[in-house]
């Protein structure tokens, strides 16, 4: 009798455990479709660069890249106090994000007021951004309808964010042309063509998303440029280029390094590259934000 009772109890407890496990896995595989989130991540440092480009060009003046005269730069640098770190200022990102938030809420996308976006993208140790305050992020949620695809939702959000960033550029940035028209006669037509090719290729490589993200574009750009001029691109071991790009970079590196060794006017070419890069960045708002559709 006791044996029979123990046996039954054993099977009964096993059944309970098995049914609870089934319930657990059922719950696990059925509840996730309801949770739909996306994150808007604004590239704070790139935005700060674009809106304070004169100061940023001047800050790089003492390296190999010199855009302005020293006198001009001294005046600009004196305007800013030493403590103020221009890259970490989040006021512009806040302003743009607030506008995006208002417009998204009108389209039934809700802001989630928790710390998850900050925890994921911004807080240290950050696996996403390189320096603290490089990015500014927010989490939004949406109701998923079976009839609406993810592409439809993206099509609703992307133009809206683009518009906000373009609006900011229009209102806040002046079309200051950078002074680089002098010394144009230093090179002949052939060389100018080669410089144009060099500029285009270099920008294409820097903006290639396979090599690195859109965050910190300026820092990366300066890094590659400095590596080319000093012929020390191997030091940038964090980025691995593919074979054809490596070949191109080596060729351009040799060219720029030779110009530097022969004391030719290298600043002129560098100015040209930097200003082209700047204008390419300013034309396309997609360099200033990222949109991620992650579940949870």
């Amino acid at each position, binding site marked *: 009798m*006791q*044996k029979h009772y*123990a*046996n039954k*109890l*054993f099977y009964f*407890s096993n059944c309970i*455990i098995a049914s*609870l496990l089934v319930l*657990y*896995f059922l719950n*696990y*595989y059925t509840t*996730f479709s309801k949770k739909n989130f996306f994150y808007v991540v604004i590239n704070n440092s790139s935005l700060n660069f674009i809106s304070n480009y004169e100061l940023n060009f001047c800050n790089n003046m003492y390296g190999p890249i010199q855009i302005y005269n020293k006198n001009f730069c001294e005046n600009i640098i004196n305007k800013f106090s030493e403590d103020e770190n221009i890259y970490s200022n989040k006021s512009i990102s806040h302003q743009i994000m607030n506008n995006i938030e208002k417009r998204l809420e009108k389209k039934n996308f809700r802001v989630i007021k*928790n*710390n*998850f976006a900050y*925890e*994921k*993208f911004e*807080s240290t*140790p*950050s*696996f*996403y*951004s*390189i320096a603290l305050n490089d990015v500014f992020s927010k989490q939004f949620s949406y109701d998923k309808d079976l009839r609406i695809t993810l592409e439809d939702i993206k099509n609703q959000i992307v133009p809206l964010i683009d518009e906000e960033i373009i609006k900011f550029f229009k209102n806040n940035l002046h079309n200051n042309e950078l002074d680089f028209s002098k010394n144009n006669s230093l090179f002949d037509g052939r060389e100018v063509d080669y410089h144009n090719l060099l500029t285009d290729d270099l920008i294409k490589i820097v903006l290639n*998303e*396979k*090599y*690195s*993200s859109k*965050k910190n574009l300026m820092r990366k750009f300066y890094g590659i440029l400095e590596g080319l001029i000093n012929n020390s691109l191997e030091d940038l071991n*964090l*980025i691995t280029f593919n074979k054809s790009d490596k070949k191109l970079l080596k060729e351009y590196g040799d060219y720029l390094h030779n110009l530097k060794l022969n004391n030719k006017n290298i600043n002129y070419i560098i100015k040209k590259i930097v200003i082209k890069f700047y204008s390419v960045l300013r034309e396309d708002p997609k360099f200033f934000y*990222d949109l*991620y559709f*992650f*579940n*949870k």
Partner: protein
Amino acid sequence: MTYISSINRNYFLVLFSNFFLFLASLLTALSIYTSFFSWFFFILFLILILIKTSENIYKENKRIFYLILTSFFLKFFINEFIYVYFELRGYPLGTIGGSDDISYFLKGKLIAQLFINDLSAQLNPRIYHVKISDNQNFYLFNALINLIDIKISLKEMIKVGIIINAFSAVIFYHIYQNIRLNKNYIFLFVFLFVIDLKIFFYSNLNLKEIYLLFSFICCIYLSSVIITNNLNNKKILALSIFGLLFSAIIRWQFFLIYLFMIIVSIYFRLILIIKNNYILKLFNLSIFLGFFLLIFFYYEDVYNYIIIYNNQIVGNLLTPNENLSLGNKIFSLKLADNIFYIFIYLGHGILGIFPIFKVSNLYFEFQKIAQVWFHLLLIASTYHGFRCLKNLNKNNLELTFFTITVTIGVFIIILLCALVTYGSLEFSRYSLSLNLYFLIIIAISIKNLNINFIFKIIGVYVVMNLILLIPYYYLKSLL
């Protein structure tokens, strides 16, 4: 219980078979590769490994086998219930832990999601350049679990910790077997480990501590195997070596302490237990001492390093809000004034005189319960500790050296914890291995146990609290 086992032998024989495990591992690998019910297969695979490793226990003591499995499933479902309940009450991700376990989980998830969506270039390049001593490895471990199934939530992540805790219980049984504890008491001590409130509380959070506790148990098992030369189970040996190496990924510093414990146990075995050539012993001893002297001279500046760490790093991280309580006064003591303040921190942490922080949440409330359990174990082990000291001289050498090895290891760990945490709130979290030590001390010294002993412990605890609380309230009424 014997009735059950005799009838259902076939039932477990299937689960114990190597072929079944091989099939399960194959299915798990396939499901992860194809993302087809990968979490289901992964959890079942871990449960199967748990059953397989406890095969020996099933043959020797079925009650303990059922205890470990039942406790594991209970913890599994209690954890599910707790997380669903707190999620409904508005706690982020259902955890009461707060910042640490959420950030570990979310960062791991971000890494995994970017990898899965082929956006790994978006990640910060330094992810590939993580130092081995870095805390970041635990984020990567979280990412690895997330890669199994990207849909998992925090509560699923914790299930892995709960399974690891069940593995700890299995190894714990083998430690007692190695030190030849009376078979009547083994069930009691495995039960005490399984229901340990402090360990249970922390195993419900996504923290490194529970994994480090597992590594610590693995280390104790290995040193018990070395000292007693009593290798029962090769599966457990493999598991414990894995556990020891796992601590190198989670926390390199702890791995070094564990390695040190193992070296100490090897030397105890070689020099003091095996009675052989004296010249060889002296030679070994000189190498051992030379090793220590080398470390001492290499890290000459340990003293200054401790003081600089104390002054700068911890002082900036932890700032209590008021400066009125006794806890805050101890908290503000500087090691630069006196290096022996470290022992005040230690006592402070063990007694739980915490500084006053403005933030008070449910986590602290649960921590108080865990602290009460810790104190009860402390009283029980001190009661038995004196008897343990007496027994050590009389009993065999192996047990004595095993106790000394574990004591050295635990002492280094708690001193480090005291240094890092100022003996504040985090001390109870980091010193999880102390609970295990108390259980081992009680188990070594126990001779006969009766119900009066439990009442005695609770009585001592209440009296000690009254001794502390009466003057406190009296002094407070005077102010």
